[in-house]
């Protein structure tokens, strides 16, 4: 990616919001979609808004991209106010929405050129920029076909190309990987990562895929009911939880003994027993487990089943809200089946 980086006002954070609020009124009921959001995102950050459907992620994104006017509060992108300086904001940002940016009756390359013209590129410039993006996003074979004939993955790459035509300083992606197969999702993540490292673009994406937020973002902002409930790196969010060590026994008596031993070894552990199963949530649980298993075998309470699981962002969400993010999202269109196979495939592909 050789295009020089476009710079807005010289310094200051990429995004600042103060008390950003949006309410909707439907059937005489007022719903607060986003409640008093205070955010500061530095230039060059790669941030994921994570939360279940309806949490307020997309509403926030729509306010930041001038599509929705905030009910209260302010937001600035590269120093421009999203209400007062709409046009300057629109010039500074790239936006990849949930739908397809390219018109389905159009050809991809044509759309790239007219997008470039819309951002003020001269004709020749717009053409060469389109060619460049077609090459970068591997669209060579399909750029001159009618968009409606492209596959989902190809269309998504075209959407991203459209968002990048003017080399924006800040790129917003709303649920970029929804509807893509695992292979395409992995490719997309790679492209986003590359854009971030090579160009230093500030990237904000929304997702309800835990794995995506985990694998991609430097900073995860967990949103629920229109509020930020956690804001840190995925690693730190998870490390505050510790590992989950699950032990199964032949006899509930053994489990009682094991629960006592585990708590004795590590006073900071959270120990739960249910019948013949003991669950221990503790930092560095994988180091605790081998000794504990030996100890229990010697004490006549052999462990019959052992599982040590590192914390996931879902655990983080569960701890923060008392709900699982998977359950919270499962109520909507997201296919609930196959999510576990997707995880493994995705891990392998990435």
């Amino acid at each position: 990616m050789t295009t020089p980086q476009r710079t807005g006002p010289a310094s200051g954070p990429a995004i600042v919001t103060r008390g950003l609020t949006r309410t909707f009124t439907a059937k005489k009921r007022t719903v607060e979609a986003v409640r008093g959001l205070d955010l500061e995102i530095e230039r060059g950050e790669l941030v994921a808004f994570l939360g279940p459907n309806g949490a307020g992620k997309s509403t926030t994104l729509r306010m930041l991209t001038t599509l929705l006017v905030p009910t209260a509060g302010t937001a600035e992108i590269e120093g421009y106010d999203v209400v007062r300086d709409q046009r300057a904001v629109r010039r500074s940002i790239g936006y990849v929405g949930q739908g397809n940016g390219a018109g389905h009756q159009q050809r991809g390359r044509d759309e790239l050129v007219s997008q470039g013209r819309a951002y003020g590129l001269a004709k020749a410039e717009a053409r060469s920029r389109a060619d460049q993006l077609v090459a970068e996003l591997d669209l060579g074979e399909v750029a001159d076909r009618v968009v409606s004939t492209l596959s989902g993955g190809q269309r998504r790459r075209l959407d991203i190309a459209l968002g990048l035509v003017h080399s924006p300083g800040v790129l917003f992606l709303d649920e970029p990987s929804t509807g893509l197969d695992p292979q395409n999702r992995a490719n997309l993540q790679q492209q986003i990562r590359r854009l971030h490292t090579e160009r230093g673009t500030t990237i904000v994406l929304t997702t309800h895929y835990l794995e995506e937020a985990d694998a991609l973002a430097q900073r995860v902002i967990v949103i629920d009911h229109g509020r930020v409930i956690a804001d840190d790196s995925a690693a730190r969010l998870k490390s505050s939880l510790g590992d989950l060590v699950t032990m199964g026994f032949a006899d509930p008596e053994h489990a009682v003994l094991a629960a006592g031993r585990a708590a004795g070894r590590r006073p900071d552990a959270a120990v739960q027993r249910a019948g013949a199963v003991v669950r221990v949530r503790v930092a560095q649980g994988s180091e605790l487990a081998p000794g504990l298993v030996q100890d229990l075998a010697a004490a006549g309470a052999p462990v019959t089943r052992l599982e040590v699981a590192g914390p996931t962002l879902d655990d983080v969400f569960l701890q923060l809200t008392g709900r699982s993010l998977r359950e919270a999202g499962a109520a909507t269109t997201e296919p609930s089946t196959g999510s576990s196979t997707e995880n493994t495939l995705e891990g392998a592909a990435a």
Partner: protein
Amino acid sequence: MSIASDTTNVLTRELRPLVREPFGMLISLMQPLVFLALFAPLLPDLGPATSALQWFVPGIVAMSCLMGSSMVGASLTQEMITGSHERLLVSPLSRSSLLIGRALREIVPTLAQAALIIAIVTPFSFDLHLGGVLLGIAILALFCVGVGALSFALALASKDQEWLFWTVQQTVIFPILLLAGMLLPVDDGPGWLRFLSQLNPLTYVIDAERALFAGSLPLVTVLAGTGAAVLVALVGLTVGLRSMARSS
């Protein structure tokens, strides 16, 4: 960037599929011809002095223009459903250009259709008065820009409910067509029908078309037709621009 260059951008983008796939437009150009072929033989023989075609052709030209431009909102509905409308809303293109560029596009099929119909009927009993026809089509184009803008406003109001758009469009379009005396004269109809016809701006546009296509230039009729077309264009653009400004 100025409104003019933004509008050019939107207009160029709208015209591109027509240029890339001219076959699609050719098909839609055929429709009024089929209509004409099936309807013209039913027209009464008015004697050698006045040709029925002379009366009927301006109506067909106006009808195909009204049909085409009232349906264009559907293309915007599609763009709203698939997402490209949202991308354009976030771009620096002005909201006005998103509407005006689209509405201006309606001039092109209007011109093409009129040219084709006239080219085909001229060898038959239709006298071509080029000056009058050109002026008539200019008035019609103005009218179509207004109808197109209203159609886009309807699409924006219907959001992604395509059925709503089509229901309203179909409900409104046929009374307007029939009340304008496009297919049958309303002069002999009952008083209430003639009254409704007089409220219909298309009536004045068609009266002007008929006069101009016949090579005459009755000032009052032509001015009334032009006035009606300008009114529709202004109302359409005002309503359309307001809807587009509020689109999100």
